[in-house]
């Protein structure tokens, strides 16, 4: 085997016996979880409201597209020949 790789493997073997730091973060984790859970609950009404708003917006869009077809462009009206009707 390659000499360098052999050295690295030996270093790794030694490194694996390293005494690791001990710490207990369970309290911090539980408080983060409960905080996120509360945030999630607080977000629910907002999501419902956003959903209803989107629904209302899509209904308005649906009707406005249909109405759009009947709107006459005022620019065209300028050049359109005058359609007068003789009254007598």
């Amino acid at each position, binding site marked *: 085997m390659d000499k360098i*790789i052999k050295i690295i493997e*030996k270093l790794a073997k030694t490194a694996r016996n390293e005494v690791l*730091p001990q710490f207990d973060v369970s309290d911090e984790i539980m408080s983060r979880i409960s905080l996120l859970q509360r945030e999630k609950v607080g977000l629910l009404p907002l999501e419902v409201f956003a959903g209803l708003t989107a629904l209302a917006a899509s209904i308005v869009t649906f009707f406005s597209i249909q109405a759009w077809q009947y709107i006459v462009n005022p620019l065209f009206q300028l050049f359109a020949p005058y359609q007068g009707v003789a009254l007598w």
Partner: protein
Amino acid sequence: MDGDNDAYRRLMQRYEPQIVRLMWRFTRDRTEAEQLVQDVFVEAFFSLKSYKGQGPFLHWLNKIATRVGYRFWKQRDKAGLFVPIDDFDAVDESKTNEIDSAHAAEVLHSLFNRLQATDRLILTLMYFEECSIEDIAQRTGWTKAGTKMRAMRARGKLKKLAEKEKFSEKFEWIK
């Protein structure tokens, strides 16, 4: 388990040492490691529904931990925050023909830190965690063939880097 915080606390206490060990491979800064351990367990809590119970819980947790660690490296690399590179020459001065395990880990960590996050991840899992190609593929979600290819490239880059650092001269006394 849904909503049972006490049960999750017990689960956490059971697997915390393994996760601490793994996250220590991603950073040697105690505060950062603590933060990463927290991230792993918080992410695991909100992903519990995705755990099908088909394999050991630790395997599933290790997968999350690997993802959290990798993401941490990626963010750190993106932000341009580089970990100071250790002076390898300091090892020569000891002349004791023995290397302390913490020092060996420090040297390897500094060496791996000069590589890209993907290479670093493979080498860390290979050398520190003694993972096989299959294990790495399972943890990362990569294909077995892709992992094998990546591992080969990462080892090649590591070898080149170690040659540049004159590793064989500095550590030839290691038996």
